[in-house]
């Protein structure tokens, strides 16, 4: 049998290790390099390398290698992350950017579950991130809860607000959900801007994180080296993003993943076989909003300050762009897409003004030429050892 014979050939752990190392080096250099020309050269190199990799099926090799050595893959990612953090230990801005990218990854995984798995259109993801952020700000100001619970509350309040939209979102036609989420996003901003008790357009200040005694505002001193306090946030964001990725992975390879796909692809037939369409749409919507809310809460405490114009429709569109560019429904496309979309404009000063224009054009290009995104979603195949 096919799967048996594959296991008999020994699959090397090489490809996955090399891939992790390359990614670590790329991330580190992209963050460190300031010289614009050098950056453009590096980006060109990355583009060429990616095209070559696509041509020679390297992604498949890496994936197979990762599948046969899952623990080596996971360990190498952890080691690589720590290594990158060590190299960047004093680059406060770089660390802040990395943490932001990781928080975007968390939100975008949530949106992937909503859009890529269940087929729900959500143009208000930034509003849910904002909900989490403002929840954290308000709870923090009143010192009502310890920080871990504040972060959790960010997610829960986002879920609660999202449940207001549920009834309209559950309507069959996609463009209802699109309009509802659009209108909601706009209204959210109007509400925040107009509401003085929430700080109005000037925004709110937020305290830092203190997780059960681990004060995030202190620099770390390890092995004789000094680590900027932002390392704490990057670590937290990494853990949260990883958990989000794992959740997406488990959901995908479960009955729930199949039901979400069935709802997305053919509601009528699914209903005939007894699927409760509403239940699965609600689940996907809720999980996505929860992730968005948590990342918003972390963001608020990390940035120390939030304002309504952090969470506008443009930000929601950026989130949707990331999900599409990476490959709708493919969680592995999210981190590189987030890195490109968030990091590059910060680094390439000359495109910063044009970034929204460029993303929009890029997404149009993808939708016309390669609708599946750069990393097309993998077919779900269960690893069931047959008896």
């Amino acid at each position, binding site marked *: 049998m096919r799967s048996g014979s594959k296991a008999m050939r020994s699959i090397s752990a090489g490809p996955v290790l090399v891939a992790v190392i390359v990614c670590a080096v790329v991330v580190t250099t992209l963050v460190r390099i300031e010289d614009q020309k050098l950056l453009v050269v590096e980006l060109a190199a990355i583009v060429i390398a990616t095209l070559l990799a696509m041509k020679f099926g390297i992604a498949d090799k890496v994936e197979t290698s990762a599948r046969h050595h899952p623990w080596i893959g996971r360990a190498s990612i952890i080691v690589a992350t720590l290594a990158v953090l060590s190299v960047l230990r004093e680059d406060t801005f770089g660390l802040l950017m990395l943490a932001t990218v990781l928080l975007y990854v968390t939100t975008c995984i949530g949106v992937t579950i909503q859009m890529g798995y269940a087929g729900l259109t959500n143009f208000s993801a930034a509003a849910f991130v904002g909900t989490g952020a403002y929840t954290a700000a308000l709870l923090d100001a009143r010192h009502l809860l310890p920080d871990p619970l504040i972060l959790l509350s960010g997610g829960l309040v986002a879920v609660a607000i999202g449940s207001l939209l549920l009834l309209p979102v559950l309507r069959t036609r996609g*463009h*209802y959900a699109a309009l509802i989420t659009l209108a909601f996003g706009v209204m959210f901003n109007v509400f925040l801007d107009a509401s003085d008790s929430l700080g109005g357009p000037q925004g709110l200040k937020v305290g830092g994180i203190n997780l059960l005694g681990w004060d995030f505002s202190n620099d770390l001193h390890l092995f004789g080296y000094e680590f900027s306090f932002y390392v704490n946030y990057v670590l937290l964001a990494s853990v949260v993003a990883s958990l989000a990725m794992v959740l997406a992975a488990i959901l995908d390879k479960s009955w729930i993943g199949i039901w979400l796909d069935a709802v997305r692809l053919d509601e009528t037939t699914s209903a005939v076989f007894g699927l409760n369409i509403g239940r699965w749409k609600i689940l996907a919507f809720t999980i996505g909003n929860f992730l968005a809310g948590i990342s918003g809460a972390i963001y608020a405490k990390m940035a120390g300050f939030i304002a309504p114009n952090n969470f506008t429709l*443009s930000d929601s569109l950026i989130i949707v762009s990331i999900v*599409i560019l990476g490959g709708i429904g493919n969680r592995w496309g999210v981190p590189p897409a987030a890195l490109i979309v968030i990091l590059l404009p910060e680094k390439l000063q000359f495109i910063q003004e044009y970034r929204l224009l460029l993303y929009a054009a890029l997404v149009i290009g993808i939708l016309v030429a390669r609708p599946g995104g750069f990393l097309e979603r993998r077919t779900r195949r269960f690893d069931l050892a047959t008896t």
Partner: protein
Amino acid sequence: MSTLAQHLLNGLMQGTIYGIVAMGFTIFFGVMNVIKFSHGDVLALGAFGSLSAVLSLQPLGLPPALQLLAAFAAAILLSGAIGALIARTLIMPLREAPPLNMLLMTMMVGTVLREGIRLFYPGGTNPQRYPELLPHGGFSVANVFVRYDGLILVFAGIASIALVHWVITRTRLGLAIRAVAEDSEVAQTMGIDFAKIIPVTFALGSLTAGFAGVLFGLYYSEINYGMGLLLAIIGFSAAIVGGLGNIWGAILGGYLFAGLQTLVVAAIPSLSDYKNVVAFVVVIMLMTWRPTGLLGEGESARV
């Protein structure tokens, strides 16, 4: 009393503009099952195009009537052309794609247009003053002051809606459009050239939007690069609440939305900032209650 009249006039003007935008949405949906989200930004493009035309003609010192003509001509040509272009190059090729892709694509096209205006029009980030080309002053009726320009604009807007309605219902072109909306395959077997009708339909809807853009500028004396986005969201909801594919529904939806806004502003001035929120909430409730719209969807809507 005069503030009430002012509110009413505002409401009428808003409603007319929303109605025009909603009409475009509903026609595009009817004919291709497409939500063309860039519609509002096409309107903005028309408005800015007209502004450029007027400003570049200013050294010539033409009479206001000619300037108006130039403004409308520029807006109509620009919006109509862009609308047709988008239909031809992006919407038609993607018509077999999942509806989500189409919606996303048109949203991104709108973003490109919007950012384009912001980045490439001189000083685009800031609101631009729009010249006052209509007669000033007005007249009093029963203690109420009515502006000439307001009146002219409302009539012009209503006239444009009536014109589009006439084209759709009484001309051969309109017949072809309705045939394609009802059943594009049958229409093609009857000899209607799909590849020609679609861009023409989009041009028709878009040039009306350009027209509305000029009305907007003349009424508020100001335009800004982001004006299309909110107009699109409102126009879209007006079209849905009236019934997608149903032209009367779109017009009704537009005036309904404006009416709700006016109600909030007139009756509860302290909540003026929230007028859109209130209007959206009511519209969303209406949509949840009657998903096929208040006047029912046009025959083209397929389940």
